């Protein structure tokens, strides 16, 4: 029944989705949609409600108003494991691997939702059970290879380098065979080389596997390179949406990140820098960033919005 007219229905559709914790509306009447095969980014200053939106989508929270549809069906009040079975998988902002397990065992957990053996099969080691175990292991090995972590298969997850742990989380999420993968700050804490590799991996997830990608990311270089469309949240409200170019030029977005009046300064500096770089590095291919991305990234603007404290008081 999921094979039906996808031209008209979006893969994900939030209809004035709201969640209030007491008086705080962490996600406030958000309307957005994601189509199958897109790479969409969700950005915004710290505390804007991005991860909370992920939690609404993956069943950890239930919207207090409005609803979120996945594949045309509401995910409100649906348990997380059911949502995983329907085809949404995710990674976590603060990596939540099963730390004491090996990499391979972590990915094998991801196969859980697509397999079905129970205690009976386990106790009597039925042929069906043995076949399924072998298949789970083989699939998990493939997913590790896909993200380039084969050499770590038997290493304990918590002993992996930081960047590898993030990739392992992605492998675990992919192993559930999702239609949509939600990546919560996949590039956080990565160096330039690692995040360039991550870019490639995310493109491969979409292009080779046909999986739709929704990502939260503070690293604008990554966002501008990857995302086809961007949604911007601030104080739980959707303040802008559009292509990377549109978002970079959007005064409301600059204000959200930098405070009032900052857009003028940013524009001036952008023009100056763009002028300086007109003939340089224009022809270079991704994952090199364009001039504007460099601008946003420089001066540590991304990681430390100056008005972060002010927001928390509000």
């Amino acid at each position, binding site marked *: 029944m999921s094979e039906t007219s*996808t031209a008209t229905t979006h*893969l994900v559709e939030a209809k004035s989705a709201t969640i209030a*914790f007491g008086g705080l509306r*962490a996600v406030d009447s958000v309307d957005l949609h994601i*189509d*199958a*095969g897109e790479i969409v980014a969700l950005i915004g200053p710290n*505390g804007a*409600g*991005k991860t909370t939106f992920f939690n609404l989508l993956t069943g*950890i929270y239930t919207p207090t108003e409005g609803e979120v549809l996945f594949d045309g069906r509401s995910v409100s009040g649906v348990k*997380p*494991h059911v949502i*995983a079975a329907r085809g949404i*998988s995710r990674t*976590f*902002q*603060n990596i*939540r691997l*099963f*730390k*004491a*397990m090996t990499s*391979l*065992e972590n990915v*094998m*957990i*991801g196969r*859980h*939702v*697509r397999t079905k*053996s*129970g*205690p009976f*099969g*386990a106790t009597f*080691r039925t042929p069906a*059970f043995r076949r399924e175990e072998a298949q789970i*292991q*083989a*699939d998990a*090995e*493939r*997913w*590790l*290879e896909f993200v380039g972590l*084969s050499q770590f298969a*038997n290493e304990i997850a*918590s*002993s992996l380098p930081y960047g590898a742990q993030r990739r392992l989380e992605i492998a*675990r*999420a*992919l192993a559930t*065979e999702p239609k949509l993968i939600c990546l919560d700050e996949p590039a*956080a*804490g990565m160096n330039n080389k690692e995040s360039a590799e991550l870019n490639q991996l995310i493109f491969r997830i979409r292009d*080779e*596997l*046909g999986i*739709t990608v929704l990502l939260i990311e503070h690293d604008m270089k990554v966002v501008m390179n990857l995302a086809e469309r961007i949604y911007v949240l601030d104080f739980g409200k959707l303040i802008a949406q559009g292509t990377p170019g549109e978002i970079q030029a959007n005064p409301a977005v600059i204000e959200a990140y930098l405070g009032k009046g900052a857009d003028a300064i940013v524009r001036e500096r952008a023009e100056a820098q763009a002028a300086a770089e007109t003939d340089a590095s224009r022809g270079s291919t991704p994952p090199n960033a364009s001039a504007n991305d460099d601008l946003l990234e420089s001066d540590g603007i991304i990681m430390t919005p100056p008005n972060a404290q002010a927001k928390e008081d509000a």
Partner: protein
Amino acid sequence: MTTERDNINSEAPSLAADLLPAAKPMFKKQRGSKTSPLKVILLVILALALIAAPIIFQGFGQLLLIRIFAIVGLYIILAMGLNIVVGYAGLLDFGRMAFYAFGAYAAMLIGVPLAQALGPQLGGWAYVVSLVGGAIVSSLVGFLLSLPVMRLRGDYLAIVTLGFGEIVRICLQNNFLGLSNGAQGLPRTGQTLPAPPGLDWLKMNVYFPINDRFVIEFSSNVYWYYIILILLVVAIIVVRRQDNSRLGRSWAALREDEVAAAAMGVNTTRAKTWAFVLGALWGGVAGATFSYFQMVASPETFNFFNSVLVLAIVVIGGMGSIPGVIVGALAIQGIPEFIRWFAQNFLSGAASGIDKTVSNYRNLILGLLMVVMMAIRPAGLIPSKRIKREIHGAGGSDGSTRVEGDVLVNGVPAGIEGATPGGGEGA
């Protein structure tokens, strides 16, 4: 672009198999699939020693030791069940004796009338039916208990299970529904429990003297020693297999990070329910056997102190580790009994009363040993590799995971994004 969009809606069952090339197998040695020759030799020696033990003990006139070993065996089975709940699934249970009690009483309630119905020839087989019946009843109780406690964890779960254990004991003591016969227990006066299958025949027909001292012959204690040994081997095999499976992995995931496990598609409710049911099953098996072995089921056995002892077996032996549970049971159940046995046998000739004094202090000595143990080996005597890593490795981030999980379970949000402590956000 359009082809990609089409792809997404026509996904084949195994995405990896369809889209990705086969990986080189990189996980050759599955847990427990191959054992080294040395291990095999040691296991054979251990098996022979266990089989020969009753004959040797009998030869030295230490019949009590056979009985002690049989009781220790029952506690290993009981702790093996608790190990599923506590060690694998990470759920604290302070009321283990309740399942032991359900097994014992169910066995009595099934066995006594059934034996009468079967007559003297076949009456012994009532034990087998009682064993299965006790296991089923106990599992069922485990399932029913899992329903209300599904949302609880940690200390809260411990308190509920503690209360459950006490309620069961008090109900039994007060002749609940007229079934349990109060403090006297079962079977009632005038009713008898038949000998288990084959015991009478074995007593009559097996007598093989090896020399003046050692004789192969059967008594009730020897019989039950072997029955319990067989049940124990079955329990070890079954529990190992269950741990080393899809279900076992889901328990491990649940124990480490419930939120992540659920997000990856693990049905945490089902995993917990299975842990309770399969854990209770071994409580029932041990309880049914215990009641036939003792020929009585009475409430004072199933007290809180014994529940704590079973938990101590698992924790001190090493949570999630079957060898740990075995060693733990030997230590916790064995040490006090051995102290008593030692006092009775070797101190009775000394100054009057000293044997009794030492014997009475055995729980104190045990307590001291436990404190020392926890200080020098916090992960247990023979810890499971994985649990050892959980305790020693990964440091504070592990704790933060658990706190956040608690907050979520209690229905209070863990705060807005980024509020979780100890994350890698700023790294």
